[in-house]
């Protein structure tokens, strides 16, 4: 680790600088505005640092659907559980997914009853496991937004290069721009400005966003994840709103460029193609997910395992769908903090640290 890293962090967490920007926000705002931070990582940081407590009361932050664990559909989770139950399978996943409730159980309970479920930190670790266990089928649960998609694509390309016929992924990646369309086109939409997800834009750039901003007359600022990044993104969005200007600005220029990472985008286009995807609690959004291109279909776990016999059933109390669409706050759920806690989650947003409900619970927003 380099010597500079801590300075870099303390710089973007510098309380004095954050307070200066907050004062500027207070000077700028003249009327109520409702902003949505897209990414669950941003929700988490806002709660962790308590930034919502520091904003002028005119500004309401609504938490977006940007937690990949939360929006992964129940069908996909039940498919994952069915695959993980197969004796010849080593099922690999990011740790967050293990506690997400499927219709009847979760990956932890599969592991407890003898299934091989392993937590990995990168899909490349799953490829490694595949190379080491030629007699097993290794399946990686490829969840995430555009941020994790390049690594998932890389895992497919790498296993092709290594000639592994025992590696596959359960494709579950979702895409931000179609979700923005879905939110803004909804008749119940309240969102007037967006904080676009900085790390998604690091991969994809933000060239996809100006037409969306234009179509729905909604300004956006590409925003990072440190306290200073977040207040800067809010300031830029509020300035545009107050000035009546619709544009997409970049408040995270130390990481994001307009065009994004072209190499990663080329790799994504090679391996994946946009497909319709069901978002948990929201609905099916057209062309909002990544499926495998024809040439890589053989790496699709649903082609290798029969998962057709699945009956899904959602909790009746959980209002995750309304939370994910920004209609309700987690604390407005009747089950919040009582029936539904991080130990006994009813819905996915209570599971992942990026989930709005978990962030509310963990950072003490038990009642508002």
């Amino acid at each position, binding site marked *: *680790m380099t010597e500079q*890293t*801590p300075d870099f*962090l303390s710089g973007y*967490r510098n*309380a004095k600088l*954050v*307070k200066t920007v907050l004062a500027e926000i207070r000077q700028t705002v003249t009327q109520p505005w409702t902003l949505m931070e897209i990414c669950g990582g941003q929700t988490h940081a806002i*709660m*962790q*640092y*308590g*930034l919502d*407590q*520091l904003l002028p009361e005119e500004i309401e932050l609504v938490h977006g659907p940007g937690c990949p664990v939360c929006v992964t559909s129940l069908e996909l989770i039940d498919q994952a559980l069915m695959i993980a139950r197969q004796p010849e399978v080593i099922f690999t996943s990011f*740790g*967050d997914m*293990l*506690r997400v409730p499927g219709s009847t159980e979760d990956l932890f309970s599969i592991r407890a009853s003898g299934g091989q479920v392993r*937590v*990995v*930190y*990168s899909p490349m*670790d799953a490829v490694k496991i595949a190379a080491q266990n030629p007699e097993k089928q290794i399946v990686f649960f490829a969840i995430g937004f555009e941020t994790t998609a390049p690594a998932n694509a890389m895992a497919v390309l790498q296993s092709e290069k290594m000639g592994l016929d025992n590696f596959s992924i359960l494709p579950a990646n979702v895409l931000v721009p179609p979700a923005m369309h879905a939110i803004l086109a909804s008749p119940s939409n309240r969102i007037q400005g967006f904080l676009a997800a900085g790390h998604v834009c690091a991969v994809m750039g933000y060239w996809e966003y100006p037409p969306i901003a234009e179509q729905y007359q909604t300004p956006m600022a590409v925003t990072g994840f440190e*306290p200073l990044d977040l207040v800067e993104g809010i300031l830029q969005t509020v300035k545009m709103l107050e000035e009546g200007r619709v544009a997409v600005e970049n408040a995270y220029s130390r990481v994001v460029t307009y065009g994004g990472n072209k190499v990663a985008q080329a790799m994504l286009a090679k391996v994946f193609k946009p497909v319709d995807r069901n978002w948990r609690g929201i609905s099916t959004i057209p062309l909002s997910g990544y499926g495998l291109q024809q040439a890589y279909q053989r790496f699709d776990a649903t082609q290798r395992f029969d998962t057709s016999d699945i009956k899904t059933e959602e909790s009746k109390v959980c209002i995750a769908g309304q939370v994910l669409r920004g209609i309700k706050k987690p604390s407005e759920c009747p089950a919040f903090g009582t029936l539904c*806690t*991080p*130990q006994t989650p009813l819905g996915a947003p209570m*599971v992942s*640290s990026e989930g709005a409900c978990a962030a509310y*619970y*963990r*950072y*003490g927003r*038990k009642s508002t």
Partner: protein
Amino acid sequence: MSESSFKPINMQGPVCPVPHHHTGTVVIGHGSGGAMTRDLICNVFQTYLGNAYLEQGNDAARIGLQSTSGELAVSTDSHVVFPIIYPGGDIGRLAVCGTVNDVAMLGAEPAFLTAGFILEEGLPMDTLIRVIESMAAACEEAGVQIVAGDTKVVEKGKADGIFINTAGFGLIPPGRHLGGQLAQPGDAVLISGTLGDHGIAVLQARGDLGFESNIQSDVAPLNKMITALLEAVPEVHVLRDPTRGGLATTLKEIACQSQVSIHLEEEAIPVKPDVQTACDMLGFDPLYLANEGKLIVILPEDKADKALEVLHKNPYGLLATCIGSVFDTNPEQVLLKTPYGTTRILDMLSGEILPRIC
């Protein structure tokens, strides 16, 4: 039959094959209770951990007590950490320090330990010896003796190398009352050093984080530092070591036990920059990571400076500092004041996915 293939007949009759001598690895026979167990005890355990009590060689140790006043503090802890050896420590040092510290948190002077070993068939003897040597060194440092022990060997795959249970015994001097239920409004909360070192060191030693650092576990016996502290400042109300669940979970327990709230200043809480960076990369909060050589001290505020002075003189307390205070409002809550002037509630650890850390 050709001349060259002719072999002379063995005229000695059937001969029992001499069994292989298993010295390189642990095998099932080492747990049989027979001669191989005896060899293991003599060659390994007695060699490194031997003392007059172990040498009695009976089913139980007989210990004469010099003082029978005061009360006895007893604690037990099973250690299953993976990997067995990690930067800054190993399961042997952990098994001694963990139990020594638990006993010391009541203000007791830990004196005796027992140790139960569950060994997996195939464990390299060198690894076992290294762990036992490390236990011996930790016992020496803490001034305790292992007075009874047990060894079992299980088939390969039924355990993970080595599991160690230790129990610890120590006398609490008369008049000494410490406990998690004794925090008082107006008390100060001290921590003896940086948080999260052990948790990150162990995670990183598993080799699947994809980065390297020089973070070392803080595993250490704290009893001598505690003795010095309590001699100088007998007014201490609570001592606790923030192991699994970290500082946040431990303070939450104390807040519930004592029916008080604890307010922390985030900026005052010491975390090493490389531990903080590792946490940022992995999405962990250092306040929830395990520590194995840190001490929480809760005591009347006017005694805090004196306590810090004593802690600073000990190698395990060099970075001791005051991180918060105790209040009677909002009982059972732990509140963290951020550098931005905001407050957040710290709850118990829930659901973080961490490997076995102790």
